[in-house]
């Protein structure tokens, strides 16, 4: 099938669908009409799109944890705890890493071993193996909207199963669930596969069922400059809209400098709305998600609470529609349900204290918003140009040419030349832009900020700054300074 940014025909879709539903026995349980009937009975307060829309109207920020274990009953226990004790506003089901690689046989091993061991040996919920039956059991046991969160390059079968189970939101995208999550899967394939996932949501929309889609904002979660993640978010938003998706949540991962973080969210909303309008998608319900710090965490739980709370405060001051919550166990791996609830409680307390408070517009904030929008426009203009106007084709070519380049990504289809580093105020700037098509002014501006830091630290602007910055938050600071600074 030829890659194009164009809504799939029914013929195309249903032909591929036959193959998808045969990938694992649970695929055969799915009946589109029965699923639609089931989804139509989902009450308003359990619909992801409606809850986000309401939060946006009220100007509040919702809190959503990450969570998933191998077995259905244990997963229900976990989610119920986060709902009742943690006070989560939205629930996730984090999918395990074998499912993400479509290794369903290994999932079976993990499920069996987890039953035997009495603890989860999988790092998430194997939704495909549990099928519609298991996924509906989870959905019916909780009282909040449910979303699949994963990192699956080919999530077509998973998508079919979760939506048919009443889960009204799906995270991911052809770029954001490939470049940071795969080593050798081509972008052509993942963009096509995510067009399929978007089309599933679009078909439900056409049946009057509201489904939310959320491209994964933070990418590698490591010093990603806002213009990079905003560019990817806008591209994936446009690709989803073309397939008929109407309710879209664009995401961003906290960098740590308040002004940059608030500017990133504001620039993302303003610019995405401009692009949706420019390309004729006039009825998109756009919301935002802010991810608390995605990099290395301090091992000490009190310090972790400091990181979590500061992320929550930034999300509130930025006016994000929801925030993805970290836990005090972040440094040591997957948290207990108690630790997970603790993260939610610290987050919600902070959000509630800050309800209605926004970072006011200032000269500095205005300049940062303008910078991010200008950078993003440089990238997106070039993506459209190399695709001869086709965004899907342009995206593939842009990665080939390093026009889009995501720091620290494992994919061999990513140039991996870009190097980010923090400036003296902790904002993420670009040390080496590789082939990202910035204007000379923008490049000079980044360079001058990093040289200012270099002078302050008495060292050259070089790779060691990047390494130091990666470890900094885990060591308790934002900027990785040399020891004597």
């Amino acid at each position, binding site marked *: 099938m030829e890659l194009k940014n164009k809504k799939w025909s029914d013929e195309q879709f249903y032909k591929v669908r036959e193959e998808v539903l045969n990938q694992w026995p649970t695929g055969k349980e799915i009946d589109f009409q029965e699923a639609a009937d089931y989804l139509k009975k989902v009450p308003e307060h359990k619909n992801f799109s409606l809850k986000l829309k309401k939060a946006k109207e009220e100007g509040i920020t919702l809190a959503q944890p990450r969570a998933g274990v191998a077995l259905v009953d244990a997963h229900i226990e976990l989610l119920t705890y986060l709902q009742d004790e943690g006070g989560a506003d939205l629930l996730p089901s984090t999918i395990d890493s074998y499912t993400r690689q479509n290794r369903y046989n*290994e999932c079976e*091993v993990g499920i069996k071993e987890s039953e035997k061991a009495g603890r*989860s040996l999988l790092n998430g919920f194997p939704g495909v193996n549990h099928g519609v039956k298991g996924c509906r059991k989870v959905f019916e046991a909780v009282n909040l909207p449910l979303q699949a969160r994963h990192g699956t390059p080919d999530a077509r079968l998973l998508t079919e199963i979760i939506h048919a189970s009443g889960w009204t939101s799906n995270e991911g995208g052809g770029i954001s669930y490939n470049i940071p999550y795969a080593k050798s899967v081509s972008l052509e394939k993942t963009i096509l596969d995510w067009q399929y996932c978007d089309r599933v949501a679009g078909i439900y929309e056409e049946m009057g069922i509201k489904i939310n889609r959320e491209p994964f904002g933070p990418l590698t979660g490591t010093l990603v400059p806002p213009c990079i993640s905003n560019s990817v978010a806008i591209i994936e938003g446009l690709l989803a809209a073309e397939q008929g998706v109407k309710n879209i949540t664009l995401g961003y991962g906290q960098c740590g400098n308040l002004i940059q973080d608030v500017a990133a969210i504001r620039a993302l909303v303003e610019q995405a709305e401009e692009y949706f309008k420019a390309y004729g998608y006039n009825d998109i319900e756009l919301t935002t998600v802010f991810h608390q710090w995605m990099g290395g965490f301090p*091992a000490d739980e009190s310090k972790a609470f400091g990181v979590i709370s500061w992320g929550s405060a930034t999300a509130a001051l930025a006016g994000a529609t929801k925030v993805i919550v970290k836990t005090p166990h972040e440094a040591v791996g997957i948290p207990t349900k108690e630790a997970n609830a603790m993260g939610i409680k610290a987050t919600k307390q902070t959000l509630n204290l800050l309800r209605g408070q926004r970072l006011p517009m200032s000269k500095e904030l205005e300049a940062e918003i303008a910078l991010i929008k200008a950078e993003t426009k440089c990238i997106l203009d070039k993506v459209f140009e190399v695709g001869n106007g086709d965004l899907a084709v342009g995206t593939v070519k842009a990665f080939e040419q390093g026009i889009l380049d995501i720091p620290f990504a494992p994919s061999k289809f990513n140039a991996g030349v870009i190097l980010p580093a923090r400036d003296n105020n902790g904002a993420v700037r670009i040390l080496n832009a590789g082939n990202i098509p910035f204007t000379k002014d923008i490049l000079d501006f980044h360079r001058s900020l990093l040289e200012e830091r270099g002078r302050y630290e008495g060292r050259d602007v070089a790779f060691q700054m990047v390494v130091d910055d990666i470890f900094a938050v885990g060591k308790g600071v934002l900027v990785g300074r040399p020891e004597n600074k």
Partner: protein
Amino acid sequence: MKNKLVLGVIGADCHAVGNKILYHAFTEAGFQVENIGVLSSQEDFINAAIETNADAIIVSSLYGHGEIDCRGLREKCDEAGLKGILLYAGGNLVVGKQEWSDVEKRFLDMGFNRAYPPGTSPQTTINDLKKDLGW
């Protein structure tokens, strides 16, 4: 002559940042590093070790499935003629917050020479490598 290491992230794990940093640190420390990157199978590690005639295999696992993914690696190394090769594992090796001494014992019982908890500095591993390789 430089000691040779095979470095990679095992299983369905795609955490690339630490892998890039480790590659940088081990190379700086004077090792010759074959980095097979993320999403590597046991076979990928073994093949790379045979091809490069490696002295040690350093397995990272950041996503909690390390326990399943690493099982049997020592036996497969033995079968492949890599008897006695150093096997290290480190990262977030298991799901959830568990007592480190229990986790370490599980990995040593599986035939690993050393296992490292989350947050270990690359320098610790470098020092151990130098000791185990008789520098």
